[in-house]
C-alpha cells in the first residue's frame, strides 16, 4: 500500500500517470478473464435447469400494514434467480415447485417462504428493529452499519418532519457529541461543534465541522440546504471515520445525503407551514410607573449615609435631600412620611417652586428637566417603546417535490419558498431553494448522475438596533415620556427632545433601503463505471457559483445625517469553487468469509473569490434615485476597493477495509493533503488512521441470548485542519496604513501626494496544517433484538501545531507572526441509549437519550518558559508561562474564567468595613484572596487576587426525546436538551445605568432588582454601585439550563379514507418550539435566555403534508 503512495508522491508527475495506465491495463486483463468465466458458468446453469421441472410462480408482497411493497427483492434460495416486485407488490418468476423463495427489503426482516407446490403466494413483511443492514455513508462509499469501525451517528430526517425543522441545525440537536448553537434570528441556524473546541484558533469557523453534501465537499452554509430535501445525515466523530476527508476533518464531518426517488409510482409531495414567531425571553424595561419609582430610588440612594446620632446607615443623610424625607416621592402619596404637601413643597426654596404645578416640581426633583419630557410627565402621556421594538412575526414555508424512479432513471425535483419574520421589528429573511436530481443507468456498467441545487436568499436586514452600549442606537431605552410621533403625525426624529435626541427606528427607516443577498448554484456530476471483478471507477466533479450582492442606501432627507458621510454602498462578489475526485474501489469476498473493500481516491479543489465595493458619498445634486445612482457621488468623500483571493488544494487517499466472517473488521486509511496557504515551502501533510472492530456476540463461545448486537470498536488516527480566516497569512504583505500620503513639493511648487507602503506582516514559509491525533474506544450494544440499543464512546484528542500568533519583540519590526504552536487536549465520553419501551398495536413509545461530557485542557502554548519559585523566592524549576491576555492557561480549558471573585454585597451594618476599600453599603464585596500585598491592613487588589472560577463552554450536554404513537394515526413527540456545568461573568448587576450619562439624560434602563436599605438583597448591587480600586466587579453566574425544546403533535389521515381520493398520505401537524426553559441561576431571568444570554423566541407552527 505504502509503495503505491510513495510513487504518487514523486514530483515527477509522469510516473504517476504511468501508474494509472498500468492500473487500467490490469483492470482490463482481469475483466477479460472474468467475462470468459462468467459466460461459461452461465451456460452451465441454464443447461442444468432445463432438466428439472419449473413452474411459473406468481406472488404478492405486502408490508406489515397490508399495503403493497414495491421494490422488494424475491430470489430463489440457492440460485442466482431473482426479481423485484412491481408497483403493486406483485412478482412473477420461474422456480422449481419445491424451491424456497427469499424475500428481502431494506428495513424489513428477510423472509423465507417454501413453495411446497404452491404457484401463488402472498407474503407479509415485518419491519426489522435491527438496523444492522442499514446503509451508512462513510465517505467515498457506503457501508452496512454492521461493518462500521468508526464512531458514526445517523439522523433520519423523516423522523423529525413533524417538528417542521426550519434549518439543518434543528435536525441535529440531540446528537451526542455535537453541540448545536441557538440563533434567535429570523433566519435561524446556529453554530456547530463536535467533541469540544479543538484549537485556540477560532477565526473563520475553524472549529466547526466539515460538511459533505452528496459525497462532495460543501463550501456554502447550511441554510442553502432545505431540510425537507434531506434523506439522512451521518455525523462522523472519530479519527478513523473522518480520515478519508481532508480540509478540516479534524473538527469532525457531517455527511448530508439528499432524498432520491423511490421505485414505484411517481410521488408528488406538498408541505405547507405557517409559524407564529414571538419573543420568549429578553430583558424588560420599566413601565411609566416603574420608571418613576426607579428614578426615585436612584435619587434616594444618593442620600444614603451614616446617621451620626444613631450610628445606623440610613437614607436622607447626605446630599440635597439631607433631612428631607420623601423629597423625591409622589406628592399625592406622602402618608408614609407623615408630611403634608405644603411641607413637601417647602423642601425647596419658594423661588424654585413658584408658578409650577406639584407634578412639575416633582419631575424637576427627579431630574426630568427637558421641557418636552417634563410636559409629557405631568400630562401622563406615555409611549410603550418595548411594543414598538418587538412584534409577532409570521413565517411561511412552502415546499413541493416530485420524485420517482423506473429501472433506469431515478429523479427527484423540489422547490421550496421560505419567508420568515423575526421577533424584532424589521428582522426579515426569505429564501427560495430548488433542487433537481437525476440518476440514470445508461448501460448496465455506466451510471451518470447530476444534482443541481439553487438558492436565492436574502442576507441581513434593517432591523431595530438592540445594542446595549451607551453609544448604540437603541429604541428600548427611550424614556416612557418621550414622543413617538410629532403633532403633525410624522415619526419623531428626536423622541427625547432636541437637547437629548434619542433614537426612533421608524423615522430612520424611512430613509434607508437595503437589498442584500446571495444567489447560489451548486452542482454535482457523478459518473460511475462498473468494471468486472467488483471494481468500480467513479469520477465526480462539483462546480459551484455563489454571487453576492449588496445595495444599501441612506438618504440625506434624514435631517440628522450629513450628506458627506452617507450615500450608497454597492458591493458585488462572486465565488467560484470546484472540486473533483477520481475514485477507484474494489469490493471482493473470498471464500465467503474474507470481505475486502479497497478504495483509492485522487482529489483536487480550487476556490476563487472576486469582490468589488463602491462607497459613494455626498451624492449631488439629489440622491432621489436611491442606490441606483453612484455616478453623482463626490469623489473626495467616496472610496472603492476590490479584493480577490485564490486557493487550491489536492489530495490522495487510500483505504482498505477487511472483514473476516463478519466478526472481525479492520479499516486502514492513509491520506496525503496539500493546501496552497501552506504552500511556500512544503504544503503537504500525511494523515494515517487505523480502526478495528469486533462483533463479539457473533463468536461461537458467546451465548447470552438477550444481547443481539455487541460490537467493540478501537480506532486511532491523525487528521488535519487547514481552515484559515485569511488564506494568505503565511505571506508577507505591504500595507498602505490609513491610505494617506506623503506630500512632496515639486520644482514648480506644486504638491505631489505619494502614497506609501510599509511592510506589515512577516512571512512564515513553514506554516503548516494543524494536526489532531485522536483515539476512540466504542461499544455498541443491542438487547432483546435491538429493542434497547446503546452506544458508548470514550475518546481522547490531542491537537498540536495550532495556528497561533506568536508575539515578537516590537523592535524587530513585526508585532507577531502566524505560526504553528501549542497543544490542546479534549477527552470525553458519549453515551446514547435508544429504547422501544412499549409496542402495542394502539400505543407505541420510544425514547432516545444522549449524553456527552467533554474535558478540554491546554497542554502547551508558546513555549516561553518562566521560573517556578518556592515560598522563599528560590528558583526550583521552570514551567511554561500562561497567556493571561487571552485567558489561556496551561492545564486549564480554553474557556477558563479567571477573574476576581465577588462574594456578596456590603450590607448597611458593614459600612465601616466597606469604607476601608472606599466602598459603601450596596457596593459589591470582592474577595481579596492574596493578602501578602496588603498595605497596613487595607486590601490591595491586583492580578494576584484573580481566581479560577469555572469555564464558559459547557462540558456536559444531554438530550432526551420521547415519541408516542396512539391508535396508529396520532404522533406526539417531546424533545428536550440541556447544557450543564458552565458559568459566565456578568457585571450588569452593578446597575451602572449612568454610563454615558444615560441616567442624567432620562433614558429608561433594563429592569432588574437592586439593593436598597429596605431591600437588602445579597445578589444585586445598589443603583450606580462602585467596585474597589484595582478590582473588576463581574459576578459569576451558573448558566446550566434545561430547555423543553419541542412538542409536536401530528395526525395522519387513515389510509382507507385516502385510498378513495388517490392520495397516498395526508398529515396535519402542530408544534411549539422552545416551550419552556429552566435555568439553574434564579437571577438570570432578568438578563434573558440562559442559552443565548439575551433574546430567544418561541414559535408556534401549524402545517400539513400531502403526498400524491
Amino acid at each position, binding site marked *: 500500500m505504502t509503495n503505491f503512495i510513495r510513487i504518487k508522491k514523486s514530483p515527477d508527475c509522469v510516473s504517476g500517470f504511468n501508474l494509472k495506465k498500468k492500473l487500467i491495463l490490469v483492470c*482490463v486483463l482481469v475483466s477479460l478473464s472474468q467475462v470468459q468465466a462468467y459466460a461459461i458458468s452461465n451456460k452451465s446453469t441454464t443447461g442444468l435447469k432445463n432438466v428439472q421441472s419449473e413452474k411459473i410462480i406468481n406472488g404478492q408482497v405486502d408490508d406489515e400494514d397490508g399495503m403493497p411493497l414495491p421494490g422488494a427483492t424475491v430470489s430463489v434460495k440457492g440460485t442466482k434467480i431473482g426479481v423485484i416486485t412491481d408497483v403493486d407488490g406483485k412478482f412473477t418468476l420461474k422456480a422449481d415447485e419445491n424451491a424456497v423463495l427469499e424475500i428481502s427489503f431494506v428495513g424489513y426482516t428477510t423472509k423465507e417462504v417454501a413453495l411446497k407446490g404452491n404457484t401463488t403466494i402472498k407474503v407479509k413483511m415485518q419491519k426489522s428493529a435491527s438496523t444492522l443492514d442499514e446503509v451508512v455513508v462513510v465517505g467515498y462509499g457506503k457501508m452496512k452499519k454492521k461493518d462500521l469501525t468508526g464512531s458514526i451517528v445517523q439522523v433520519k430526517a423523516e423522523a423529525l418532519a413533524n417538528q417542521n425543522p426550519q434549518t439543518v441545525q434543528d435536525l441535529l440537536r440531540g446528537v451526542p457529541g455535537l453541540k448545536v448553537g441557538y440563533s434567535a434570528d429570523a433566519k435561524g441556524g446556529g453554530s456547530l461543534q463536535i467533541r469540544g473546541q479543538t484549537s485556540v484558533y477560532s477565526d473563520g469557523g475553524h472549529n466547526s465541522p466539515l460538511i459533505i453534501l452528496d459525497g462532495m465537499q460543501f463550501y456554502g452554509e447550511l441554510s442553502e440546504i432545505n431540510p425537507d430535501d434531506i434523506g439522512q445525515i451521518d455525523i462522523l466523530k472519530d479519527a478513523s471515520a473522518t480520515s478519508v476527508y481532508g480540509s478540516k476533518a479534524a473538527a469532525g464531518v457531517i455527511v448530508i445525503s439528499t432524498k432520491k426517488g423511490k421505485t414505484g409510482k411517481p410521488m408528488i409531495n406538498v408541505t405547507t407551514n405557517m409559524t407564529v414567531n414571538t419573543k420568549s425571553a429578553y430583558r424588560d424595561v420599566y413601565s411609566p410607573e416603574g420608571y418613576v419609582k426607579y428614578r426615585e430610588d436612584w435619587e434616594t440612594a444618593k442620600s444614603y449615609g451614616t446617621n451620626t446620632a444613631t450610628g445606623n446607615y440610613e437614607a436622607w443623610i447626605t446630599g440635597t435631600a439631607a433631612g428631607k424625607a420623601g423629597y423625591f416621592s409622589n406628592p399625592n402619596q406622602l402618608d408614609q412620611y407623615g408630611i403634608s404637601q405644603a411641607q413637601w413643597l417647602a423642601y425647596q426654596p419658594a423661588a424654585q417652586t413658584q408658578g409650577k404645578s406639584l407634578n412639575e416640581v416633582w419631575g424637576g426633583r427627579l431630574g426630568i428637566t427637558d421641557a418636552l419630557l417634563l410636559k409629557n410627565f405631568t400630562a401622563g402621556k406615555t409611549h410603550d417603546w418595548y411594543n414598538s421594538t418587538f412584534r409577532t412575526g409570521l413565517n411561511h414555508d412552502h415546499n413541493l417535490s416530485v420524485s420517482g424512479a423506473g429501472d433506469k432513471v431515478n429523479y427527484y425535483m423540489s422547490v421550496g419558498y421560505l419567508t420568515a419574520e423575526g421577533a424584532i421589528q424589521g428582522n426579515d429573511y426569505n429564501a427560495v431553494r430548488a433542487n433537481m436530481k437525476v440518476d440514470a443507468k445508461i448501460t448496465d456498467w455506466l451510471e451518470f448522475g447530476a444534482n443541481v441545487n439553487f438558492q436565492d436568499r436574502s442576507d441581513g436586514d434593517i432591523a431595530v438596533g438592540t445594542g446595549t452600549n451607551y453609544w448604540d442606537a437603541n429604541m428600548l431605552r427611550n424614556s416612557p415620556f418621550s414622543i413617538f410621533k410629532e403633532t403633525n403625525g410624522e415619526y419623531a426624529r428626536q423622541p427625547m427632545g432636541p437637547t437629548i435626541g434619542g433614537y426612533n427606528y421608524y423615522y430612520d427607516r424611512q430613509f434607508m433601503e437595503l437589498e442584500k443577498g446571495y444567489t447560489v448554484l451548486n452542482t454535482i456530476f457523478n459518473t460511475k463505471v462498473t468494471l468486472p471483478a467488483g471494481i468500480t471507477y467513479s469520477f465526480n466533479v462539483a462546480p459551484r457559483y455563489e454571487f453576492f450582492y449588496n445595495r444599501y442606501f441612506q438618504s440625506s432627507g434624514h435631517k440628522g445625517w450629513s450628506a458627506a458621510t452617507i450615500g450608497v454602498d454597492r458591493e458585488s462578489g462572486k465565488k467560484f469553487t470546484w472540486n473533483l475526485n477520481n475514485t477507484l474501489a474494489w469490493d471482493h469476498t473470498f471464500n465467503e468469509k474474507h470481505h475486502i473493500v479497497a478504495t483509492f481516491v485522487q482529489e*483536487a479543489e480550487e476556490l476563487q473569490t472576486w469582490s468589488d465595493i463602491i462607497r459613494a458619498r455626498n451624492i449631488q445634486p439629489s440622491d432621489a434615485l436611491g442606490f441606483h445612482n453612484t455616478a453623482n457621488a463626490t469623489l473626495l468623500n467616496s472610496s472603492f476597493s476590490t479584493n480577490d483571493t485564490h*486557493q*487550491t488544494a489536492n489530495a490522495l487517499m487510500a483505504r482498505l477495509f477487511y472483514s473476516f466472517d463478519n466478526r472481525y473488521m479492520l479499516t486502514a486509511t492513509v491520506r496525503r493533503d496539500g493546501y496552497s496557504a501552506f504552500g511556500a515551502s512544503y504544503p503537504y501533510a500525511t494523515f494515517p488512521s487505523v480502526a478495528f472492530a469486533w462483533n463479539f456476540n457473533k463468536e461461537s463461545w458467546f451465548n447470552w441470548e438477550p444481547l443481539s448486537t455487541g460490537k467493540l470498536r478501537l480506532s486511532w488516527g491523525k487528521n488535519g485542519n487547514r481552515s484559515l480566516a485569511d488564506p494568505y497569512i503565511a505571506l508577507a*504583505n*505591504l500595507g498602505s496604513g490609513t491610505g494617506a500620503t506623503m506630500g512632496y513639493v515639486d520644482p514648480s511648487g506644486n504638491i505631489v501626494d505619494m502614497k*506609501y507602503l510599509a511592510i506589515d506582516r512577516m512571512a512564515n514559509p513553514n506554516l503548516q496544517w494543524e494536526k489532531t491525533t485522536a483515539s476512540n474506544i466504542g461499544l455498541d450494544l443491542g438487547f432483546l433484538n435491538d429493542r434497547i440499543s446503546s452506544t458508548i464512546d470514550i475518546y481522547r484528542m490531542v491537537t498540536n501545531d495550532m495556528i497561533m500568533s506568536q508575539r515578537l519583540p516590537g*523592535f524587530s519590526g513585526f508585532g507577531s*507572526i502566524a505560526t504553528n504552536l501549542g497543544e490542546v487536549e479534549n477527552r470525553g465520553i458519549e453515551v446514547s441509549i435508544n429504547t422501544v419501551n412499549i409496542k402495542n398495536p394502539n400505543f407505541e413509545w420510544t425514547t432516545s437519550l444522549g449524553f456527552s461530557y467533554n474535558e478540554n485542557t491546554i497542554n502547551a502554548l508558546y513555549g516561553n518558559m518562566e521560573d517556578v519559585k518556592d515560598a522563599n523566592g528560590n528558583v526550583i524549576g521552570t514551567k511554561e508561562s500562561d497567556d493571561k491576555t487571552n485567558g489561556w492557561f496551561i492545564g486549564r480549558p480554553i474557556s477558563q474564567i479567571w477573574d476576581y471573585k465577588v462574594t456578596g454585597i456590603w450590607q448597611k451594618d458593614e459600612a465601616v468595613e466597606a469604607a476601608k476599600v472606599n466602598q459603601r453599603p450596596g457596593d459589591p464585596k470582592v474577595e481579596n484572596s492574596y493578602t501578602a500585598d496588603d498595605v497596613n491592613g487595607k486590601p490591595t487588589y491586583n492580578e494576584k487576587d484573580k481566581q479560577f472560577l469555572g469555564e464558559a463552554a459547557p462540558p456536559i450536554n444531554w438530550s432526551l426525546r420521547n415519541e408516542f404513537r396512539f391508535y396508529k394515526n396520532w404522533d406526539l413527540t417531546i424533545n428536550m436538551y440541556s447544557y450543564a456545568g458552565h458559568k459566565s461573568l456578568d457585571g450588569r448587576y452593578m446597575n451602572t445605568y449612568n454610563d454615558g450619562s444615560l441616567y442624567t439624560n432620562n433614558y429608561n434602563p433594563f429592569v432588574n432588582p437592586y439593593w436598597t436599605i429596605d431591600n437588602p438583597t445579597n445578589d444585586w448591587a445598589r443603583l450606580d454601585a462602585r467596585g474597589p480600586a484595582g478590582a473588576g466587579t463581574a459576578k459569576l453566574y451558573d448558566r446550566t439550563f434545561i430547555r423543553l425544546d419541542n412538542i409536536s403533535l401530528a395526525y395522519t389521515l387513515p389510509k382507507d379514507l385516502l385510498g378513495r381520493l388517490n392520495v397516498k398520505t395526508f398529515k396535519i401537524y402542530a408544534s411549539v418550539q422552545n416551550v419552556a426553559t429552566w435555568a439553574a441561576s434564579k437571577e438570570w431571568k432578568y438578563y434573558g435566555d440562559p442559552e443565548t444570554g439575551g433574546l430567544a423566541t418561541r414559535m408556534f407552527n401549524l402545517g400539513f403534508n400531502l403526498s400524491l
Partner: protein
Amino acid sequence: MKRYIKNKISTLAPLVVATALLVSCSDDFLEPDPLSFYEPETTFTTETGLQATLAIADKGLRNNYIHYNAASNSVPIGTEYVFSDMAKYGKTDNTSTISDFAKTIVPTGSFKTATNDDFYLGFYWDEGYNGIKYANTVLTYIDNVTSLTQDVKNKYIGQAYFHRAYRYLNLVYQFGDIPLITKILEVPKQSYYSTKKEAIIEMITADMEKAVEWVPEQSKLPYLGLVNKGACRQLLIK
C-alpha cells in the same frame, strides 16, 4: 465480446486522461497566489516600490512635531523638551504629576504612543523602530530591482542610511544600549541582545559617510521633501 471491452477502454481511457490532465503537476498547482495585496517579492521589482517605502520614512520625520493622530495638548517633541532644560511640565490640576520621574520612568510605567497629557516614551521607541524597519526594507529588497543603474541604487541606499541613522541616533541618546536591527527578518527570532551605544554610533557614522557621497543635491532630486545631500551632511555632523 472484444468490442465490449474496446468500448469500455475507449470510454474509460479518455475520462482518465482528461482528469489526469485537469489536475496538473501537483507542485505548481499548490503555489499560493496573492491577488489583492502587495507582496514584497513582486512589489519590489520596480522602482516605485522603493519610493513608496521611502515616502513613509520621510513622513515619519515630521511626526515628532505634529504626531500622526490628533494630539491636543502636546506633541512628541514636547516630551524631549521636558526631559531637558528647555521646558517643565506645567499642568497643576492633576492629582498625580507625570514629571515625578521616579514614579513614571519605571519598567511597568505607561509607555504611550498616542496621548495628549502624558509622556510619549512609547512613541519614541515604536516610531523609532518603525523608521528603522522602513529603511531596512529598502536595504533588503533593493537588489530585487534589477532595472536600476548603480548610481540610482546608491541614491536609494544612501537615503535609507539617512533614515536609519537618524532613528538610531535619537534612540541611543534616549535609551542607551539598544538592540541593533539591520535587515528585515526572514525567520522569527526571540533572542536579542543590546548593542553598546558606541558601537551603534560607529556604524551609523560609517553609513552616513557613504550616504553623503551617494545622495544627490536637492537640485538633482525630483521633489522637495526627499532626503538630500545637505540633510545627510547635517546628520553626519551631529
